[in-house]
């Protein structure tokens, strides 16, 4: 008994030390928000196209029944990181054959049109979410966010923040490959 009590401070130190060690892990992001959508069906939504843009609008039914999983990217012209991400997504669409849909989040239509005209439009369909309500349905915490949606409408993957930089692109590529969102032969 005495021994056990004498050992208590040591045991406490080991336990706390373990926690500190865990906290020091540079890969751990305390700001990361766990997503409830993963492996869940994508939320129901039906968005009109952005006025002034020829790209059609986006609804949940557009995500279902596709041959391969598709990517839904939430973006806005006022979002600076989106601009950097735009180039990455465009490359995925043009070189790897990724299918990309967009949700234009709380954006003025004329700004969105100008933004897409300046940078190019890699999106097959773009829904205009002026109220931000569809964003809430997706559990959005900010823009940009990117989702991979399976052919049956299940959300497979969520990326919070811009897919920019080697690590992010690597993670995203892995997710795309795992989901089978890239056509065979591409992406090697």
């Amino acid at each position: 008994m005495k021994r056990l009590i004498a050992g208590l401070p040591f045991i406490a130190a080991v336990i706390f030390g373990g926690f500190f060690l865990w906290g020091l892990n540079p890969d751990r992001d305390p700001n990361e928000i766990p997503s409830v959508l993963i492996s869940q069906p994508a939320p129901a939504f039906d968005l009109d196209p952005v006025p002034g843009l020829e790209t059609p609008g986006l609804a949940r039914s557009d995500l279902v029944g596709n041959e391969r999983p598709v990517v839904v990217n939430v973006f806005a012209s006022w979002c600076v990181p989106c601009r950097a991400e735009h180039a990455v997504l465009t490359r995925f669409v043009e070189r790897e054959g990724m299918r990309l849909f967009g949700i234009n989040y709380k954006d003025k239509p004329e700004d969105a049109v100008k933004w897409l005209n300046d940078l190019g439009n890699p999106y097959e369909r773009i829904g205009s979410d002026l109220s931000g309500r569809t964003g809430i349905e997706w559990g959005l915490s900010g823009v940009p966010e990117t989702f991979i949606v399976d052919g049956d409408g299940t959300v497979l993957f969520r990326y919070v923040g811009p897919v920019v930089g080697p690590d992010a692109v690597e993670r995203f590529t892995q997710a795309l490959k795992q989901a089978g969102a890239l056509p065979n032969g591409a992406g090697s």
Partner: protein
Amino acid sequence: MRQLIFAFCIGLLPFAANAVEPDEMLTDPVLEQRAREISKDLRCVVCQNQDIDSSNAGVARDLRLLVRERLVVGDSDAEVIEYIRARYGDYVLLKPPLEPATYALWFAPIAFVLIGVFVGGGLLMSRRKQEAFEDLGSEDENTVSEILRQNEAGDAS
């Protein structure tokens, strides 16, 4: 001095500012009060350690509006919270729900206090018992009675 007090009061003004803007508020004061209470239990997903009631973030405003919208439709408080929880997960609840995954969170403090009381109490008790059972020995016994006698004599005089 008066100027100082004035400056202090002016300095306090910004803290009185409320994130809930007038155009968000419901006309029904009872519903509005319920909305405020619900908002205080929901975490803002942008600023993370702030509730949506006091957050100026855009998403927080949207969630406040959503809470009010659900209330107007006739949802109960629990239903409103469940609606938002279904979209954002347990993470948005500032008060974590009591379920198997959170038992450690809820009961660990109580368990630690109980362990502390038992270990500490047990330690003290065992020490006290030892002292109670220890015999003083005849020499010490004599010394003590000698002192006691002297004290009594001193009190009497």
